[in-house]
């Protein structure tokens, strides 16, 4: 055995070299290729010694992990080119190919057409190139023993995500605590944020100039949290605009956003005591297409020359198309988005930009309502925990003591 393995290897290398040279098809080389092929005896690679299959944990019972020991013949430069994985229903025993893996790989996940609770058998064939005495070659498949039957299981709690639950509960509980505390009274300090403080003045400016205010709620639908945040801000902006009797216009690129924005504004106007000033046509749909929407809003910006433009929500490439036009039209622009790729463009073209988290905080700020402000305190608590964790984690990792990241990394 000790001698055989290196010998096998050597022959396999010869066989491969001979094969590849023979394939070149050069007349001069054929002779030597023949000699090598003749010298190499027909050898069969060894099968996979064992195959184990197990349920993939923490899933909906739709995947099985198949692992095997590498064939002893599978070594660098060896004749083994890969493995072919077969599966059979335990009750029928008929094996069907489910996939291939290349040499030196020893596992695969069977994630397709797996029913939970059904027993399966797995088998792994070694695929190897065999060189025949006449110099030709073919691919051999040497089957393994089948694995013991295994069934996928549905889990009801994903234990991989336990730490996510723990951290979430801690921060959420703190947030709710601060909300309750704020409700009972108690002064909550929030620092100045330029972009948010500027809202009133920006609308006031439009009133003085007798021009419109535009509010652009992004180009995503209501299933984006940023749009929801943008609409919440629209509620506050709408109340101020109603109070100042400034015409506010909301072009949307999504029908559902149009509907929601109308509901929101209607309420804002009636809360400001001016329900009659609200007209449905203030909020209108243009088109779902990103660039057509940008083209149309651009056109409106140059024609109507609004004094103030808000961009609040999810923005993509149109961010600069809109804000550059607004800038050239002389509007005061306040933007807010959590799309990191677009922040630089708003920063370059707008007077004020709410960065990521500030977009989500803005409506709470503008409401000045204790419960809303309390939730901001909860956000800060979360940041405090993360800061502490990062600091500790880095120190402990540098000192090579404990890897804290394992409590934060979630699959």
């Amino acid at each position: 055995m000790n001698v055989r393995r290196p010998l096998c290897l050597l022959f396999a290398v010869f066989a491969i070299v001979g094969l590849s040279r023979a394939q070149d098809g050069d007349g001069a080389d054929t002779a030597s290729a023949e000699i090598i092929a003749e010298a190499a005896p027909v050898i069969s690679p060894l099968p996979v010694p064992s195959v184990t299959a197990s349920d993939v944990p923490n899933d909906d019972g739709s995947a099985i992990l198949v692992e095997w020991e590498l064939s002893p013949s599978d070594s660098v430069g060896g004749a083994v080119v890969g493995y072919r994985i077969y599966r059979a229903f335990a009750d029928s025993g008929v094996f069907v190919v489910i996939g291939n893996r290349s040499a030196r790989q020893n596992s695969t996940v069977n994630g397709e057409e797996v029913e939970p609770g059904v027993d399966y058998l797995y088998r792994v064939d070694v695929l190897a190139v065999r060189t025949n005495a006449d110099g030709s070659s073919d691919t051999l498949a040497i089957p393994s023993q089948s694995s013991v039957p295994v069934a996928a299981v549905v889990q009801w709690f994903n234990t991989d995500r336990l730490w996510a639950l723990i951290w979430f509960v801690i921060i959420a509980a703190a947030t709710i605590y601060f909300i309750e505390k704020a409700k009972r009274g108690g002064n909550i300090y929030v620092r100045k944020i330029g972009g948010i403080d500027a809202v009133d003045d920006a609308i006031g400016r439009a009133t003085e100039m007798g021009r419109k205010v535009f509010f652009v709620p992004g180009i995503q639908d209501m299933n984006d949290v940023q749009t929801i945040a943008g609409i919440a801000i629209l509620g506050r902006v709408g109340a101020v605009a109603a109070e100042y009797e400034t015409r506010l216009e909301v072009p949307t690129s999504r029908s559902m956003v149009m509907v929601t924005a109308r509901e929101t504004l209607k309420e804002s106007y009636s809360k400001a005591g001016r329900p009659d000033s609200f007209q449905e046509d203030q909020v209108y749909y243009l088109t779902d297409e990103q660039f057509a929407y940008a083209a149309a809003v651009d056109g409106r910006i140059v024609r109507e020359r609004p004094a103030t433009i808000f961009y609040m929500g999810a923005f993509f490439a149109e961010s600069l198309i809109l804000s550059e036009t607004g800038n050239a039209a002389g509007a005061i622009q306040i933007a807010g988005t959590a799309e990191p790729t677009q922040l630089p463009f708003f920063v370059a073209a707008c007077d004020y930009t709410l960065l990521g988290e500030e977009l989500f905080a803005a409506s709470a700020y503008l409401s000045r309502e204790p419960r809303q402000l309390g939730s901001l305190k909860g956000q800060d608590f979360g940041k405090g925990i993360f800061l502490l964790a990062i600091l500790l984690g880095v120190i402990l990792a540098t000192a090579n003591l404990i890897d804290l990241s394992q409590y934060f990394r979630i699959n």
Partner: protein
Amino acid sequence: MRREVPLLITFITGVVFALSYFIPGGWLGQTERVFGDWITIVQAFAVWLGVLNLLKISLIKIQRKEHDWGYSVVIAVCLVGTIAAGMYSGFAPQFESFRDPETPFNFIFRNIFAPLGATMFAILAFYVASASYRAFRARNREATILLIASFFVMGGRVPLLDSIFMPIIDGTFFADFAGWIMSYPVTAGQRAIAIGIALGIMASSLRVILGIERSHIGGGN
């Protein structure tokens, strides 16, 4: 009823969908996909509201002969025309799908929609230039940093700085430096923003679920 039912619906769905994150089995294990499917179907319904609104506004403008009403005619005709072409392309038996290369719908897409979209996108090249000319000025420390970072990345990403300094510094120094900026300081900035966003979304979602933030149902307090 009008106010309480929506609040209750938001609360229940919010809690259920949040919990589903921890449950791998059953349909709760696939809420992201299931919800995605629902949304696409709701969008197919909701688009009627938008398109009818667009048509209504255009027709009103035409009827009242408002300023520039001619363009409203163009919008209305293009809208109805495209829908007609799409329906014909989708239902006519000679086409397999409304997207087939030979359909009139595809003709509109290729020769009207696509070039318009591509050009609107390309306009950005001009705006990027004018925005940099105006905004990237060393007004204060922050602006200077912004300027320097953009300068090196802009010049390093194409073989511009490297070829200018070829006689002095050999190789791809500026390309590597641009890469270094992208992989370290930029990672740091983006990570801070990302973590902030995570907490921001968490707090504002909690406000929505708990009914503190209720603007989406037209509700103040």
